[in-house]
């Protein structure tokens, strides 16, 4: 007991912000009390899935928010946009953009502390659908950076909190504004966005009850509307995010922490893809763990085949992203002649999605693996009709394991007692035609292990730290020569 207490006392000491020592550790959340981030975490205390917090430089956040905001200009439905800008002067820099956004949005609410004529900026002062809420300087939200966008077809948000001066460590706060650090997360998950926007609206109610009423009505209206309309294609949004982040790379060169800022940008580009994969998985009620399980299987299989570490890492990432390719089980995208057909497929997000990944050159190897996962061993597959060893090894592994995992999920759902054996039998039947026979043999070994109780580490990846998954170009070069 004494040791336990001493840990807690040390914890409490390390958080000067903590009002009192509380023995339930789960209440020791070090986030700013009363902040939106803290409220959101508290609201979904019972949900197991982690929120994937990360740290972000201001540099990254600006690019990210611009991308998410600019998509508002492209979407057909009129979104509701709630943002928090810390200080009024930051909003002043964006007022021009917000004027354009206001033309396409149903309503915009901006929170910031009152300074430098925040409320009477000419660009947005007299617009009926833009409301500026001056928050008190001691409001916890004055340290937060939010962008919450909700429409019946599109949902996105960035929810961050600036580091306290003490959190920067011995080096202290950075001199350059773009190197300021925030922590929090961003997401496309509609459910999370809805919870956050409700919390934000409730907070606005402290300052402007009338506006709260208005916004609440809007959210309720959107809820009913969203039940019967097609959601916007995420590919376009993700593409936008990646290209905006890529464009920011050039601006970091002159800064002192250039490498760290660059890594932060690259990590977020990858996060955009991982979050999209996560949404695809969540939408599939029959097989919601496909990405994590295929990635874990691929890694074990790679180890069985004694692949080097760089190849395993690549396999793992390809496994996590393998569902971003819509080519599985469908050939409709191969030969499109009619413009109208192309348009409709594009709207439904059925055009080859790996093209999205081309936006990020560092993912080229992964794109290649995913593109060829629909090839068949005997050459009857798509997209290039490659056969035998001409198909990249990782693609062959991925094809087999994605099929195997899907079969297990189906058999489990059907209440089959021996899902592994049945799924393996299905794969064995296709050995030599669809799948590489040597790999099917290796899979049989793996299944034996699974039946004997070997467990796969199917932890959801920590999306926020995506950087470790990325190959560096020289590594690929070195490995290719080796």
């Amino acid at each position, binding site marked *: 007991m004494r*040791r336990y207490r001493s840990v807690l006392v040390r914890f409490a000491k390390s958080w000067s912000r903590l009002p009192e020592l509380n023995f339930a*550790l*789960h209440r020791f*959340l*070090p986030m700013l009390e009363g902040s939106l981030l803290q409220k959101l975490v508290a609201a979904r205390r019972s949900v197991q899935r982690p929120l994937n917090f990360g740290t972000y430089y201001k540099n990254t956040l600006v690019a990210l928010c611009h991308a998410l905001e600019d998509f508002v200009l492209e979407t057909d439905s009129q979104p509701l946009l709630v943002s928090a800008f810390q200080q009024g002067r930051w909003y002043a820099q964006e007022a021009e953009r917000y004027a354009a956004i206001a033309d396409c949005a149903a309503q915009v609410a901006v929170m910031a502390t009152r300074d430098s004529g925040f409320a009477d900026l000419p660009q947005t002062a007299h617009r009926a659908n833009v409301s500026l809420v001056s928050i008190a300087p001691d409001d916890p939200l004055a340290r937060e950076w939010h962008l919450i966008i909700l429409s019946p077809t599109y949902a996105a948000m960035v929810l961050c*909190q600036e*580091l306290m001066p003490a959190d920067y460590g011995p080096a202290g706060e950075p001199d350059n504004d773009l190197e300021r650090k925030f922590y929090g997360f961003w997401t496309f998950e509609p459910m999370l966005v809805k919870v956050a926007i409700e919390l934000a609206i409730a907070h606005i109610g402290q300052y402007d009850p009338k506006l709260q009423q208005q916004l609440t009505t809007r959210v309720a209206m959107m809820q009913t509307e969203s039940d019967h309309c097609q959601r916007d294609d995420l590919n376009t949004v993700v593409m936008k995010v990646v290209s905006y982040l890529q464009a920011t790379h050039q601006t970091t060169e002159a800064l002192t922490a250039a490498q760290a800022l660059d890594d932060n940008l690259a990590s977020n580009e990858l996060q955009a893809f991982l979050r999209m994969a996560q949404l695809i998985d969540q939408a599939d009620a029959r097989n919601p763990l496909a990405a994590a399980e295929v990635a874990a299987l691929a890694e074990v299989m790679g180890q069985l085949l004694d692949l080097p570490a760089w190849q395993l890492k690549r396999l793992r990432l390809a496994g996590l992203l393998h569902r971003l390719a819509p080519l599985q089980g469908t050939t409709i995208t191969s030969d499109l002649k009619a413009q109208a057909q192309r348009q409709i497929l594009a709207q439904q997000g059925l055009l080859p999605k790996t093209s999205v990944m081309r936006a990020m050159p560092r993912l080229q190897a992964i794109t290649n693996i995913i593109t060829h996962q629909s090839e068949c061993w005997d050459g009857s597959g798509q997209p290039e009709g490659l056969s035998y060893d001409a198909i990249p090894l990782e693609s062959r592994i991925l094809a087999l394991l994605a099929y195997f995992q899907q079969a297990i999920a189906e058999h489990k759902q059907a209440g089959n007692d021996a899902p592994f054996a049945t799924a393996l039998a299905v794969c064995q039947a296709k050995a030599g035609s669809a799948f590489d026979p040597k790999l099917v043999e290796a899979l049989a070994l793996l299944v034996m292990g699974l039946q004997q109780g070997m467990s796969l580490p199917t932890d959801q990846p920590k999306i926020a730290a995506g950087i*470790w998954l990325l190959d560096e170009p020289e590594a690929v070069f070195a490995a290719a020569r*080796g």
Partner: protein
Amino acid sequence: MDIAAIRSGTHKQLPGVDLEDENLVQAQLEKANLAGATLTGSQLQAANLRGACLDGANCLGATLVAADLRASFLGTNFLRADLSRSDLRGSNLRGANLMGAKLTQATLAAALLGGANLTGANLQGADLRGADLRGSNLSSTNLRGAILAQADLQGANLSEANLEEADLRGANLAGADLTGANLLCAELTGVNWAGAALDRTCVTGTDLAQSSARLPKED
């Protein structure tokens, strides 16, 4: 000495050999015996050292980028060596000196690093899943975004270490020294904290919801 023969893997029995500043890029040294060898400043990019023995060797300032190092390195000196993106899965690095070494994006899953000295090393984005780091010295190391899930860090010295965004799920930090460490946005589910020193530890943005799981019960 015939460097070409060593590179191509003809000679494998090389205990105590002097290979200072040699070019051994992509050398085939599988299962070679290099115990006590001098490899200071040598170039070993993408070399294959699988199953080799480098116990007590001196690799000061050597470049081992993307090399296959699934080998034995008992007490080897890697001071300021570049081991980034190398494959060290399951390697034995007990008592090795890795001060100031570069290990970014290296794979160290299940490696044995008990008693190793990693002071000031750069392990950003390294994969240390299930590694044995008991009693190792990780003070001031950069472990940003590293995967330390299920790693055993019992009694390790992590003072002033940067563990920002690291994945520490299920890690054992019993008795570890985390004074002044940065755990910003780290994943801490299922961590065992018993007796860990946490003065000035920065834990902002972490979700500690289930990290008390293995704390000793109140008596």
